[in-house]
């Protein structure tokens, strides 16, 4: 899953970035409103973590623009602006959730998971599909009830594919979810992870659609 972190405070930014990456999210970090605008126009994200008091362009303006473009990416506002009116304003501008600084990292992560779950069109916290169940909170994967150990990247690929069964994801789309700006992408990395997953979960789960990409079948 690829996240955009919009945060002007370098100390907060550094810490959140590290903590999110430790959770195997691919995270890009921008420090002002204009950079956030640019990133959101050029890259697809699964979730945006948005501070409101930003230099150059206010977070609310960035958010309003985003929604005006009919971009439905989930937005979690994390800010020190605590007045009720401001929280209401933030949600009305198109935010999906609101956390107040200072926040607990565990809470932030749980809210991120909840938003990602909702964005994938499901409410139940554990995905179960074709005998494979994954729990994003604990990163447990069970195949026919037996635990399987996946690497972080393999996990990310599987989560992306299981999030929308029946939807084909191209190699580039999968790469986007795996790597943020800081990491170089090796040319056949995705194939390597798919191969690993097939070995651990069974060859039938992930199908190759030639010339297009990969998918998990609906049935």
């Amino acid at each position: 899953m690829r996240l955009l972190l919009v945060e002007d405070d370098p100390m907060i930014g550094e810490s959140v970035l590290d903590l999110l990456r430790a959770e195997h999210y691919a995270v890009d970090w921008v420090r002002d409103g204009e950079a956030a605008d640019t990133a959101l126009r050029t890259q697809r994200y699964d979730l945006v973590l948005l501070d409101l008091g930003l230099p150059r362009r206010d977070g609310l303006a960035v958010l309003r623009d985003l929604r005006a473009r009919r971009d439905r990416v989930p937005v979690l506002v994390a800010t020190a602006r605590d007045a009720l009116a401001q929280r209401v304003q933030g949600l009305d501008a198109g935010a999906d959730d609101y956390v107040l600084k200072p926040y607990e990292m565990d809470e932030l992560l749980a809210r991120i998971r909840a938003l990602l779950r909702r964005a994938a069109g499901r409410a139940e916290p554990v995905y179960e599909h074709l005998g494979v169940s994954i729990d994003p909170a604990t990163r447990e994967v069970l195949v026919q009830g037996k635990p399987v150990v996946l690497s972080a990247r393999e996990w990310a690929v599987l989560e992306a594919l299981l999030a929308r069964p029946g939807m084909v994801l191209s190699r580039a789309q999968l790469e986007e979810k795996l790597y943020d700006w800081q990491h170089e992408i090796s040319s056949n990395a995705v194939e390597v992870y798919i191969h690993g997953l097939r070995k651990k979960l069974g060859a039938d789960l992930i199908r190759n659609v030639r010339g297009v990409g990969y998918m998990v079948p609906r049935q």
Partner: protein
Amino acid sequence: MTSPVAMFRFSSLRARLLVFVLLAILATALLQAGLAWRAARAEADALFDRQMAQTAQSLRAALPQGLATGVLPLPAEEQDFDFVLQIWALDGTLLFQSAQRAELPARAIIGFSEVTANGATYRVYSMLARGLVIQVAQDMAVRRRLAGSLALRTAAPVLWLAPLLMLVVGWVVRRSLRPVDQVREQLAQRHAEDLAPVADAGLPDELRPLVQAFNALLQRLAGSFEAQQRFVADAAHELRSPLAALKLQVQGLQRAPDAASRERALERLGAGIDRATRLIGQLLVLARQQALQTGGSPAEALELAGLARQAVAEAAALAQARGTDLGLVEAAPGLVDTHPEALRMLLRNLLENAVKYTPPGGRVDVSVRPDPTASGAALVLAVEDSGPGIPEAERRRVLDRFYRSPDAPAGGSGLGLAIAQSVAELHGTSLLLDASPDLGGLRVRLVLPLHR
């Protein structure tokens, strides 16, 4: 018992008005009575004198020829007349005396005169006629009584009216003072935070300036109240970011999987604590600064160049660590009225800012020069650097509390220049920000008048 003096010291306008109006009414009534008495006396005198003269005339006309001696019979109606009548022969024999014996002395001044007899004063009219002296006399007490009753009758209505007048005056006074009550009620119903102006519509001219002055005070109060609230809100907001950072840094430390990342997390935590400490320190400085501004401690006359030299010496270590060339380029002599602690704080903040914003290898100049515009009556303290400067549009905002330029290096509190500005305001002046003509970066100047 309240003495009359104490009565005039009534603090109530209403009571004072009532008392003075009552006294004025009484004085008027007395004056009127006195004048009426005098006028009545004068009229009575003229009237009775004429009557006395007529009586004497008519007596003369009625006198029988060749009046000898004896008591003349007089018509009954003249008996109870309050005149005393006497008729003398020229040789002094009393020929006639009316029943009312006044026993007037037996001497006659022809015409009107006043005579005292039997403990009473008489007005006497004497007349010579056919060898006889006719005297008509009247007790003055009668006249006084008459004048007195006339005077009383004139003054009585005023005295009777006095209570009614008091009521009317009381009503008018109460009515006139109603706006005062209205203002009082308006103020009594207020909440402590309600600093909206008091309505002055319909107030009398005497009251309006007072209410307007009061409103002006309220407005100033509201201004400082608002500034205070904004400061508290800003401070609460600004304290949250370093706290959020600290919290995340602690969580990062807890989750660190290996020694290297634990080391890194500890380092970050240390930096976060330094930052929070610095911010709180600056907030305290600013609060103290504002207390000083409102407290108004006296200024001292000090050599400005000395303060500048000291500040440059203090900042030298920081400048050297960053490879910045910091120096005092001119030190014009002269005493200025200053709050030394505050001015040292201002210099420290300006120098730290200049060093921080100037890239390593840059230059920071401090100077104290005579003011070229104010005919040498002031000194200009300037701190200029070779850094990126501040765009003109931002120059006003950087003096605001908590404002941070988007290009500012991390970790600043956004309070340094705000503190410096508040010190400048304490000295009755303001910071001037522009581009340094010599170094190209920011120039901050402070103009301080010379001590007299």
